[in-house]
């Protein structure tokens, strides 16, 4: 597909998602309290969007990922939260 065709197919959808992200950040910042590790990762991922590299989706996924290499001692829960937090 040409760039024009891709824009025709996906621009409105991407615009909608971008505004949702903007509104999410406004919502978070209006709320009282502190940021947590998820928002820190989120902001780091946002910075990747303006990168000139062509693999932004992969780069964003890497930012949210656990980059350690050894198995953990014991699984204390079953769920994932979307961003990795280093256990101190």
């Amino acid at each position, binding site marked *: *597909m040409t760039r024009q*065709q891709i824009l025709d*197919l*996906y621009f409105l*959808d991407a615009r909608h998602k971008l505004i949702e992200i903007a509104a999410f950040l406004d919502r978070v910042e209006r709320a009282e309290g502190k940021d947590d590790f998820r928002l820190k990762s989120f902001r780091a991922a946002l910075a990747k969007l303006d990168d000139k590299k062509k*693999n932004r*989706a*992969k780069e964003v*996924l*890497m930012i*949210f*990922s*656990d*980059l*350690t*290499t050894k*198995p*953990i*001692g*014991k*699984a*204390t*829960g*079953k*769920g*994932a*939260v*979307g*961003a*990795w937090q280093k256990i101190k």
Partner: protein
Amino acid sequence: MRYIEPHAHMVSRTTDDYERMALAGCEAVCEPAFWAGFDRSSPAGFFDYFSQLTEHEPKRAAKFGLKHFCWLCINSKEAEDVKLAEEVIALIPKFLKRPNVLGIGEIGLNKNSRNELRVLEMQVELAAKFNQLILVHTPHLEDKLKGTKLILDVLKNDKRIQPGRVIIDHVEEHTVEMVLNCGMWAGMTLYPETKCTPARAIDILETYGSENIWMNSACDWGVSDPLAVPKTALEMKKRGHLASAVEKIIFQNPKKFLRQSKNFKLGI
């Protein structure tokens, strides 16, 4: 358009979903063993589940002209209890003789713990011993990258395991390349909120090619869509993919991999 749904948890779906899938062109559905949303209290719970997958569910699918196949294992979410896992794994060999069983799956990791890894190794051993295909679940979200690497290490280190007889499921942009580079198959799961959207799955196809890769809905009791595969096929057409290219991804590729099991017969 005809398609194969290579990963769907139909025990969690209604009979209406079988009908909708059949109307959309589904010819066969393959159901890996998974977590019920709660921990089973004993091996007897797994015995009943394996019976459901090999006896009851094929009959439910057949009412709509669908072939039903399954994979057997203890899933990684219940693998922290190694003793329970050992007892469940001991049940599996007798079920491998059932005519709709394709192999061992979906085994893998969830939180990347030592016990999960131990149970994964036990089930890889089971697959090797009985010469079974392997379907692997990779962890969710932040745990996926690390878990995929740990899983690939286990599989690569066992020289009895032929890479072309293993499918690593739930790949995304940061894991697909390492899977394909190992000679294993890659599965893309189409979810509304996590894993791949249709648009991203097609991006991956356009970037990494259409060899040794399939798409599935992995529909279960959570947020998921049993028609995700045909909907993505439609999006492929919007993106200008030829009908033959679409058929390769949604029908020919899963057929090619699954036919490595003698039990996979479409009757066409």
